């Protein structure tokens, strides 16, 4: 059988069915079919490295193919789906709040959060949880996956990422943002949240409280969605929350030594000294995640 004929067989299957094709080969004459198939697996070894160079995945022996599919294939599918859905979720959750705030600022376009806080959201504060989900999450151990190959079906029937799942996550994000914003708004509406009668003033005070609650909810949601918590997952989640607190404290003290963010000066001091903030921190993220907890149960 010539390389061209091998490629044509794969092409025939691709065109006549809707299925995803995988081709595995170890020689130079398999390169054609490896490249034509959706997923090409090359065996590195006896007949040289051409097949391996042309492939998407390279394994050492034919028998490793089962582990590649049943373990890593399924893990990879589930992880990718989670990362995708989670990335949409966390951004929708934060940015939709600007819409709710617009109802209260005359639709003038004033943002609730400080602009660098927003910019660093995806870069620092919520970067680690999706990485932990994408690199480390696994529904079952490798041995279990190999023992029950029927579990491979999970990755074949679009169960983890389809239109229904996607919109459910988006609505979940909107639901969280509603709870987070409006509960914080009602909690801070009467302006006096310190025992010494000082008025907190400043939409940024509300913004920073809400932002802290968002970080908590979003990071804990990653934890809730995670099927396995390794120590790195713990670091990703608690570390992200800690990084926000650290950033907040530092950022609230730099003006006017550094000519940046005059409106943040003193924020950390006044937010952390307000009991309303801490009581809200206990109540509001738990309220937001209650439904998710029940749903996962």
């Amino acid at each position, binding site marked *: 059988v010539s390389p061209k004929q091998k490629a044509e067989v794969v092409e025939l299957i691709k065109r006549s069915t809707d299925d995803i094709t995988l081709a595995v080969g170890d020689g130079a004459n398999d390169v054609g079919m490896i490249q034509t198939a959706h997923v090409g697996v090359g065996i590195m070894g006896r007949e040289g490295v051409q097949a391996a160079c042309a492939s998407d995945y390279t394994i*050492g022996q034919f028998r490793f193919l089962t582990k590649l599919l049943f373990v890593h294939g399924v*893990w990879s599918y589930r992880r990718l789906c989670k990362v995708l859905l989670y990335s949409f979720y966390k951004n929708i959750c934060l940015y939709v709040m600007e819409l709710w705030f617009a109802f*209260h*600022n*005359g639709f*003038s376009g*004033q*943002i609730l959060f400080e602009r660098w806080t927003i910019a660093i959201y995806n870069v620092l504060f919520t970067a680690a949880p999706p990485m932990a989900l994408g690199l*480390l999450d*696994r529904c079952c151990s*490798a041995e279990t996956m190999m023992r029950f190959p029927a579990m491979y079906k999970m990755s074949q029937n679009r169960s983890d990422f389809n239109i229904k799942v996607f919109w459910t996550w988006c609505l979940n994000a909107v639901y969280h943002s509603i709870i987070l914003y409006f*509960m914080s*708004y*009602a*909690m*801070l*509406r*009467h*302006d*006096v*949240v*310190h*025992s*010494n*009668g*000082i*008025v*907190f*003033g*400043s*939409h940024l*005070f509300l913004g920073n409280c809400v932002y802290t609650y968002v970080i908590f909810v979003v990071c804990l949601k990653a934890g809730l969605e995670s099927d*396995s*918590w*390794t*120590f*790195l*997952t713990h670091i990703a989640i608690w570390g992200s929350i800690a990084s926000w607190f650290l950033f907040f404290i530092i950022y609230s003290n730099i*003006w*006017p030594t550094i*000519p940046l963010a*005059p*409106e943040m*000066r*003193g924020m950390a*001091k*006044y937010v952390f000294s*307000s*009991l*309303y903030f801490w*009581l*809200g921190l206990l*109540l509001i993220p*738990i*309220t937001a995640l*209650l439904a998710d*907890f*029940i749903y*996962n*149960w």
Partner: protein
Amino acid sequence: MPGQGETEEDHEQQKSKKPADTAFKQQRLPAWQPIITANTALPVFLIIGLTFIPIGIVLVITSERVLEHDIDYTDTNCMSTTAANTTCAQALENANYTGQTCTCRINFALDKSFDGDVYFYYGLINYYQNHRRYVRSRDDNQLLGKEGAAASECQPFQKNSTGSGKDYAPCGAIANSKFNDTLSLLYGSENVSVTNLGIAWSTDKAVKFKNPDNASNYFSSTHDKPPNWKLSAWELDEPNPENNGYQNEDFIVWMRTAAMPTFRKLYRKLLRNSTFQNGLPKGDYTLVVTYNYPVTSFAGRKQFIISTTSWMGGKNPFLGWSYIAVGIVCMITFVVFFILHKTWKIQNRPPM
């Protein structure tokens, strides 16, 4: 033999290319795999319910203990003492808002004594200090007392372009719209002693607002006062130079733009001496208003608010009731799922 030699080399090559056999790289990291079962979830709901409900009750009681008295003095309550049968709002409108002033006296009674520290606020309704164009209309460098032209964000309140061409000090819409009513309280015929210090954020006062060098010259000759101001910044509290100019606490409080269109700002604090040692006693009071600030043209409203505080802050029962509500929801969830769990367990038992 050549075959063996090649295999050995291959082995060595393979050894160097083989990824490290660590737990991290081979996806073997030990993990806690939480599966939420009835045995783990039900206690969670029970604990949340049992802690939240008492917290909520404590918060509601604390909020109920805070005493507050509001007086809306926008229009009908505040009748001008000079013009007959006109509200102060009307008097200002009749003079076409050319800086006319108006005084009124409002009698009211406190039917409970306000014990402890008492705080006086002015409240504004339908006033959007959180509007985007308004929020950015300030110059924080100027407020630090630094040299230099006023920032362009302050426009159209950056400089007196129709008149002297000098920069406004302070520039910007926030500063220009500073609240300028004076509100004082009489207990019978006695003045209620108040202080205008300690009302702003301590970080603002210490760090963000500083008077420039040679302040009196700065405010009177090199810069103009904002168009809506009657006095210049250096006349805000002349007896007290630390509370004058940019460092005036009323000004600092105003510059912290409120989050919502209904807000209050701390105006004065009760000085607890002689008659007012324990707070504000029960009885008849008079609020004397110098009505300068027009709000009726945009359907705004003004209030004078007298309030005590609790260890939490002002009067806001929302948090307390939320805790109670969430606690009750958790308890209901616990009960429902507990019953379901028990019934299913019974159903799942194999037949005898």
